[in-house]
């Protein structure tokens, strides 16, 4: 069940109708929890047990950390370590077992051990939810709840369960304590946000895939024109896919009375890579900053230590995305870019200047670097990535789509992206009369639907 599928609309309509009719907050949460289980089970019910294990682990560890608030730090650290090892152990086994087995066998020439493991959808996301909650409890940033339903719902809450945004317990748990009221929901804003997300995913992302998949499957068969078209299409696809999903997730949560923080802010308009990571997958970059980069030392200890910490963070960030060296290389490229950015800022004595101050040259360089890095993210092997890069060396017009269509389409997308940057959906929704909004919404859906790809490609980030 994905947000763009009709089954989700039926599911969500049923869930929200019942939800807003339940007078008690406790029962509402139980209802949402049940709905989240159904949502997750729609992929594979067998993995519900795995999520349950992570929930129980998180609950026990946070509760034990509360009970030992006054105990010595070593004791508490041991409890936290046990919790982290359990949650990461689940992730490590299901996501990385074959990767490590394969790497060890190729390094030592040992026979390869391959275990047929299905990757549970959303495992990277709910593991991070669990980790941040346990670490925040350990750091005494949050007083953990004793209500197991709250913990379960925090990890399983269906709008953000399978592909984020990575929500902090400090943001979500307080919202669960009070009864949400329907009149307090900015329905027009969230409906509009859902439509924008749906447009990004179903119209743009799912349609540009026709230029992406054939090229990345057999890159050696194509020339420079197709390479450029396919790589730019993938740059568009991954942004529209992921930010579209996030828009819909935030909107769905919002329509249930819960507010999730934004995860994207027009990243391709970033002036530099530091700015980019404040606009792209914001919840992940802040998670990595707070739970990995800062504990490693962050900016402290001079420029070399900062570079080391950035490199480790970005390499692990790349590894988090997928169990393949190409993802590590992608993270590494971003790490190199970020280190270069910091060095440039120090050299130019711009460190006091606003990181986000726009510059066209900076924007173009950043976009090119990010686009180049996507090659490694999307390629299935280094050999493919090298072949793709070699394609750029040969000049040829695109064959995947005639340039007469591709160029205006690309220009239209850029114009759309910039104009969306200038639009304030919330303000527009607030200003519009109910009737006008409804008529506009109906018409907008009618205009949008003919352009969707009915094959409904799965969201890219579901595989992470």
């Amino acid at each position, binding site marked *: 069940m994905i947000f763009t599928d*009709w089954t989700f609309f039926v599911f969500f309509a049923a869930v929200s109708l019942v939800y807003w009719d339940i007078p008690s907050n406790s029962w509402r949460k139980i209802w949402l929890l049940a709905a989240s289980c159904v949502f997750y089970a729609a992929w594979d019910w067998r993995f519900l047990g795995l999520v349950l294990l992570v929930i129980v682990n998180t609950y026990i560890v946070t509760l034990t950390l509360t009970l030992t608030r006054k105990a010595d730090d070593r004791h508490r650290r041991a409890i936290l370590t046990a919790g982290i090892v359990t949650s990461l152990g689940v992730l490590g086994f299901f996501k990385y077992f074959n990767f490590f087995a394969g790497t060890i066998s190729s390094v030592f020439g040992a026979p390869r051990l391959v275990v047929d493991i299905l990757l549970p959808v959303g495992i990277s996301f709910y593991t991070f939810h669990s980790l941040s909650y346990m670490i925040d409890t350990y750091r005494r940033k949050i007083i953990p709840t004793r209500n197991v339903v709250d913990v379960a719902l925090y990890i399983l809450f269906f709008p953000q369960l399978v592909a984020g945004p990575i929500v902090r317990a400090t943001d979500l748990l307080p919202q669960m304590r009070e009864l949400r009221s329907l009149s307090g929901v900015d329905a027009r804003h969230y409906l509009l946000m859902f439509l924008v997300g749906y447009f990004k995913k179903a119209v743009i992302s799912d349609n540009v895939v026709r230029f992406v998949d054939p090229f990345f499957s057999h890159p050696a068969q194509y020339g420079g024109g197709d390479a450029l078209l396919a790589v730019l299409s993938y740059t568009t696809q991954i942004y529209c896919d992921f930010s579209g999903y996030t828009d819909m997730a935030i909107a769905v949560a919002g329509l249930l009375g819960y507010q999730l923080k934004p995860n994207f802010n027009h990243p391709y308009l970033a002036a530099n890579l530091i700015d980019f990571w404040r606009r792209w997958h914001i919840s992940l970059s802040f998670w990595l900053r707070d739970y990995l980069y800062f504990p490693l030392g962050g900016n402290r200890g001079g420029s070399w230590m900062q570079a080391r910490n950035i490199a480790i963070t970005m390499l692990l960030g790349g590894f988090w995305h997928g169990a393949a060296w190409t993802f590590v290389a992608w993270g590494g490229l971003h790490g190199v870019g970020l280190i270069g950015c910091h060095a440039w800022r120090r050299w130019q004595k711009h460190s006091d200047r606003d990181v986000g101050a726009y510059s066209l040259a900076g924007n173009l360089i950043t976009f090119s670097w990010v686009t180049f890095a996507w090659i490694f993210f999307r390629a299935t092997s280094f050999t493919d990535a090298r072949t793709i890069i070699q394609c750029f060396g040969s000049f040829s017009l695109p064959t995947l789509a005639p340039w007469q269509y591709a160029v205006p389409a690309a220009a239209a997308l850029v114009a759309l992206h910039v104009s969306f940057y200038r639009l304030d959906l919330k303000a527009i929704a607030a200003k519009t009369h109910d009737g006008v909004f*409804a*008529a506009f919404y*109906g018409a907008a859906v009618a205009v949008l*639907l003919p*352009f*969707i790809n009915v094959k409904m490609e799965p969201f890219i980030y579901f595989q992470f």
Partner: protein
Amino acid sequence: MRLTPIALAILSFLIVAQGINALALRLGFGDKYAVGTALDRAISAPGTTVLFVGTSRVKYGLDPILFDATMKAKGFHTVSYNLGVPALSFVEMEYLIHEYFKQRPCCVKYVFLEPDIIQEASLREPNSVRSILFFNASNALRNFTYILQEKETPPPPVSKWILAKYVLIPLFRHYTNAGIFQSFLDDTHDNFRAQASLNGFISLAASHDRLSHKFEADASLRSKYDEMLGELSAPYSGARISNKQLVRFLDLMDYIRYNGAKPVVLRPPQLIYALHSAAVVERIQAACSDAIPVLDFGRPSDNEELYDPQNRVDYDHLAFETAERFTQLVADRFAALLDAGALATQTSCMHRAAR
């Protein structure tokens, strides 16, 4: 919950969706709707008195100009039109005939119907323009009821739920236009622009590779072909179709009669789904051979030249000159029926056949 904004949203959606649909059709979207295009062309053909309705076996197998010339030589004046549509399903056939008589209530005297009542290949592609444009509420309902009435479905075997999905998806898209531009762009075997034709007939190229050549390349095809011929030589079994399916076919013939024309069952030399067509013929002949004329070219032993691999391009379609020969044979047998006055006193045999 306030219902006014919801009603307004639905209303504006429907108005804009209809506008987009009209615009898409104006831009040529409808050209890929094989059933609609064939119907429009048939309706605009002047003075038609004989209509051939069926699948690609009819479309590529019956030349109306030659048919009329042969009939003329035998002293009968006919103006025939080939309303064959590749992979025409039974519900599409019902639709074509109903729409034809609604829009052209006069003139047609004879309607040749191919009894292939389990063909539904084209409607198993819910993303094709053909499915989307065909499945309005009325046709969807017709198809749903037909699915429930079917005794056997054509291969590959699928559940009735999947068949229902093949209807529901295009029905939804019919009214919402969801994804129509993708269907507009994609060319698949079920989604292509209507070919130019003369009186509805499309002649397969004379240079088309013959089935006998294909046998030379792959001997297993030959044995499969012989096996199919063997099956067709055995006595027909009417058990492959349900009573309700037969009633629906007879009902269609009654409708033709009600509109002043006379139906004739024409079974072309077919191999795919041939046993089901044979079942229809067997049931009709057993119950009401006097009431409904049947031109049966489905027995290989009686029509050897039509089944000769040198005269066919594949298991189911005749080569160019064989189609001409088939047309003449149909005209000969039809003229003989007219001479014998066999079509003068047609009556419904619904109550007898469906017993």
